[in-house]
């Protein structure tokens, strides 16, 4: 396990901009995520959350600006930076013909992990995520909750200091969401930096130490929850969020 200094900035977006044709998906987006904290990226559907995250883990190249993971430029040294990063993209598809273990193994091996280390790491993940019961079964027929566990284990297999999750709660039932919440909190407790996006306000409010609100590709707010509440002068979080968003965009 890497060492973690709580509060140290480890994921940094520095003026990220990205256009798709005429659509400005991200416009000078800057924010930071810290060790031992959960940072939430809140915004409506199509606000540019996924674009920002994708630039962070380097599958999209920004038109301008840069992103750093543990101080490593994702574009300059993509592979090195990615080694410090566990990614769970929006689509968490698994290979149905492989067992849960094989799914995780595949990614671990591609991360360059040796068989012995990989074996003990998977055993550890199976224990902490509660997958021991189905780790040897083929993924076909898994419930959403089981799938999300495997997908998360796949993202964590190389023991990254930082975890980025794109809309992890999407399509999950209540039990699975609760499970996921616990998993994220335990990652935080381990001192890791967790960054996730969501369009569900309650989700962000329940979990995040720090919230970055994004609308139309721009950062509208980047603060802790009490700060946001204070700045908007509203008591209820919902009011505060709506205030920040200018009441124009729907955030459920």
């Amino acid at each position: 396990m890497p060492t973690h200094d709580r509060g140290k900035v480890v994921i940094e977006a520095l003026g990220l901009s990205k256009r798709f044709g005429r659509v400005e998906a991200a416009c000078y987006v800057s924010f930071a995520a810290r060790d031992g904290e959960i940072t939430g990226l809140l915004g409506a559907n199509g606000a540019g959350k996924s674009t920002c995250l994708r630039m962070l883990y380097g599958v999209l190249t920004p038109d301008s600006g840069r992103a750093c993971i543990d101080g490593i430029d994702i574009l300059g040294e993509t592979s090195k930076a990615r080694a410090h990063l566990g990614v769970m993209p929006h689509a968490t598809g698994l290979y149905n013909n492989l067992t849960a273990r094989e799914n995780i193994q595949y990614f671990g091996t591609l991360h360059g992990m040796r068989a012995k280390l990989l074996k003990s790491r998977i055993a550890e993940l199976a224990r902490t995520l509660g997958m021991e019961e189905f780790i040897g079964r083929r993924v076909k027929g898994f419930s959403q909750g089981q799938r999300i566990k495997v997908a998360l284990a796949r993202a964590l297999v190389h023991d990254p200091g930082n975890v980025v999750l794109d809309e992890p709660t999407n399509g999950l039932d209540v039990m699975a969401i609760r499970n996921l919440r616990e998993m994220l909190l335990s990652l935080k407790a381990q001192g890791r930096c967790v960054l996730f996006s969501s369009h569900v306000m309650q989700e962000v409010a329940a979990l995040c130490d720090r919230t970055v609100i994004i609308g139309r590709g721009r950062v509208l707010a980047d603060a802790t929850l009490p700060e946001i509440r204070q700045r908007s002068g509203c008591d209820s979080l919902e009011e505060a969020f709506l205030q920040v968003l200018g009441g124009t965009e729907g955030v459920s």
Partner: protein
Amino acid sequence: MRTLFTVFAKEFLDNLRDRRTLISALMFGPLFGPLLFGVMVTQMLKQNVVESDELLQLTVAGSVNAPGLTRFLEAQNVKVTKVEMSQAAARDAVRRGTVPVVIVIPEDYPTLFASSAPAPVFLVADSADSTTRKTADRARRMLAAYGSTIAQLRLQVRGVNPEVAVPVAVNDVDVATPAGRAVVVLGFMTYFVLFALLMEGLYLAIDSTAGERERGSLEALLSLPVARAYLVGGKILATCAYMAISLGLSLTAFVFVFRFVPLERIGMSANLGWGTALAFFGICLPFIPLGAALMTLVASFTRTYREAQTYLTTVLLVPTLPIAFASIYSLKTKSSLMFIPSLSQHLLMTSILKDDAVPLVDVLVSAAASLTLATLLFWLTARHWRRESMLG
């Protein structure tokens, strides 16, 4: 290198557990193809063989009008069925298929015949029906033979040497070797081999690209600290492995099928034993990475399984086009043609079937051309995978 192998091993295992891929790769192509081929060729040979050894049966309407012709036919060992039938009824009967061929002798036949004017005879047949075409041809030849016999008799009666009526004596000299003749029939076996080869790689090429996208595992894979060229390379290699296995199976099946195809019945011999099968394997081997890279490239541009299938079935035709051209224009093996993949493999295999000498240079040029194109396609695929649009 380890990455390449990891991806290869995963794709290989993943598809080994996929019933759809397995059935297509190991059952349909390699076994069904040769079997279908064997049945088709046997059927074709049977039709060709009908010829001389079978009794010709003809239906003759109005035989009373031409007793001479009827006697002639019977003397030629034709089984004549005499019926009373109008021309219209004969047409109907042939169209319905109740009788294969009807010779109709009209009522004005005797008078015209007696006055040495051309006496009409109607041969009612369906030229679109390949099963009765042979019978019609034989009937036509019989009638022509009768005609020339009568012509000679008439000339003799008039004191003219009948030979003046035969100004040209045509002699057929067929230089085709027995094996060569077989190639006409077996020409499309190579087509079967190459087509089946591509079919086998099809599912894996789709599953490892469009399938990856459709099931939503692509982005996670692309977020790994791994060079995309290795990902693509591993996937193409796995496709190659499946294609190679099924090539081996299909050639094995061909060797067995050919033992049951009665080629010798028409004096043909097919040169397809284990040695030839091995040579075919070697010749087709460089074509495998080419096909795999081509299909992976095309499938990489598609978003769903279904879309990939639509495009790829069209792409499957591309490598088979040169072979179709070769058969239409009866292309002979030439060194310059060895630069064209699929055509070169087809020509080389045909040469071996024909027992012709195969220069080593040709084999090497054919392999080099295919591998060069495969490398180019691999490069294009890897380049596409590095693009952002790959995420879809």
